[in-house]
């Protein structure tokens, strides 16, 4: 008898076995799934600031990245600023694109879809009448965000759309942006 086994040869560089293993382990150990992420931000002068990330809490104990990462945020000359980094809202857009792109690679890997390239173009519309206090009815943040993916993969257009859709359903940043959340600010 001929037994044919479908072999998943897709390699997007995502260790899906490790992720699935973690999913199984954390299902049985919900406490270990409780993570706290951190960033420390320091004023550099003007509207320029620098955030450093390294430590985080998870799997029941303090953890570290392999090295410090820094992210500079500033504003462009049009805002009479020194332009030493992206604006915070552009960092949000890039975080959203990065989160969804990571999701696309992971979901595709899990579904056995080989990806050749993924490009995401993100736009967020904002009415400055909000942050400048011109109009109280205008919100400070984006009033719309659009993302356009260009994906080259060994799959039908429908299957690629399904991967992108699933990536949104499992994305932390997508959830953070699309749902309300509480923020507590204190001064030491």
């Amino acid at each position, binding site marked *: 008898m001929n037994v044919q086994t479908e072999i998943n040869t897709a390699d997007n560089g995502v260790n899906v076995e490790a992720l699935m293993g973690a999913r199984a382990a954390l299902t049985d150990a919900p406490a270990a799934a409780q993570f706290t992420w951190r960033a420390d931000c320091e004023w550099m002068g003007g509207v320029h600031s620098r955030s450093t990330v390294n430590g985080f809490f998870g799997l029941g104990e303090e953890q570290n990245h392999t090295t410090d990462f820094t992210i500079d945020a500033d504003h462009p000359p049009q805002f009479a600023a020194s332009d030493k980094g992206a604006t915070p809202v552009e960092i949000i857009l890039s975080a959203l694109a990065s989160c969804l792109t990571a999701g696309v690679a992971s979901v595709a890997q899990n579904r056995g879809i080989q990806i050749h390239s993924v490009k995401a173009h993100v736009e967020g519309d904002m009415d400055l009448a909000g942050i400048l206090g011109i109009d109280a009815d205008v919100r400070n943040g984006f009033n719309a965000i659009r993302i356009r993916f260009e994906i080259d993969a060994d799959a039908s257009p429908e299957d690629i*759309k399904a991967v992108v859709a699933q990536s949104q359903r499992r994305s932390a940043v997508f959830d953070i942006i699309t749902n309300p959340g509480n923020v507590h600010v204190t001064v030491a």
Partner: protein
Amino acid sequence: MKHVNTIIIGAGQSGLAMSAQLITRGIDHVILERGQIANSWRSERWDSLYLLSPNWMNGLAGKAYDGPNCDGFMHVSELVFRFDQTAAAMSAPIQTETTVLSVNTSPTGYVVQTDQGAMTCTNVVMANGACARSNVPGFATNLPQTMHQFTPQNYKRPDDLPDGKVLVIGASASGQQLAREIQASGRQTTLAVGTHLRFPRTYRGKDIMMWLDVIGATSVSHTEVDDIARVRRTPSLTLVADDTIDLNTLQNEGVEITGRLAAVQDGTALFSGSLSNLCEVADLKMNRLLTSVDEWIEDNGLGTLVPASERFEATRVPTAPKLKLDLAREGFKAVLWATGYEPDFHWLNLPVFDRKGRLIHDGGVVSDGLYAMGLPYMRQRQSTFLNGAQSDAAALAAHLGARIGQPLAA
């Protein structure tokens, strides 16, 4: 204390199907029913409800539907009538108006305490339904005191609602159907849409349930699906009797759609911004199903006998769906929580629940002599269908019979 071999809890489609199996096998049993036969169908459904499954799927207790209109849809009152008829014809040993208060283990099996006294038994079959309680999120208590709140279990008809706008939460079968009739009653209705499915009522000239049945989608065993925990959380089949209902038809009728209700704060309902993705997912899944049907038709050489393949208009998502509603200020007077149902096993004093309080079972087998029935994808998709109870009952009765020493072929 009175002893019976098996106590079945609940006289609905699952309880009657199991009773029919035990009668055939000569196993002594009693059905304990908190109210009357088919109590949930009788008292916890709305007036206008017709079954979502065509009549050929609505046989009870192992008997096929024997009425005049196999492809029609029956009103819930006809179903209740058929329940009474079926129970009488098979002489099902039903003890009505008997509420189970607790189930505990005993040296010989189980002790079932009811408001009519206690009984012991060797086996317990929990056939009290997957829709015992409406699942209402905790933040419902944040709604303004003046807001009238309903669930599909206590909503009966639009005229019971106050005049004014209505927010329906949840866009599965119950939510879409009720949004439609409330909007038609002249009350401007907003539907908050979470994860949902989309189906055409008919495809290529036949009812969609027939296609689901012939391609085998309703009878894949729980042991053959990839992630049974996820499949068991899948929303209900969004269907209405005799007609196609979806977010497009609802918007045509004037219903406004928003994202999933994420929170209620200071009288304001806050909606998620993920509506377009949830609609895209529902469309993709519908098209995947229709492709399976097309392939089945092709593989079986029936392409020339049925109308051609077609695809339906994508769900229309408003350019900027509302993200919040100040309910009182905008004139909303009522909220209907169509946010799903859950079974109720609060009387079961055994360590058989997971950390989220869900019953742990393997295809309905909970532990020695303890069985469940009618739960979502318990053994197959049709476990929650009226006629799906039959094959589940047969499988579990065989397990139960083997346990008490009956030969496998009864």
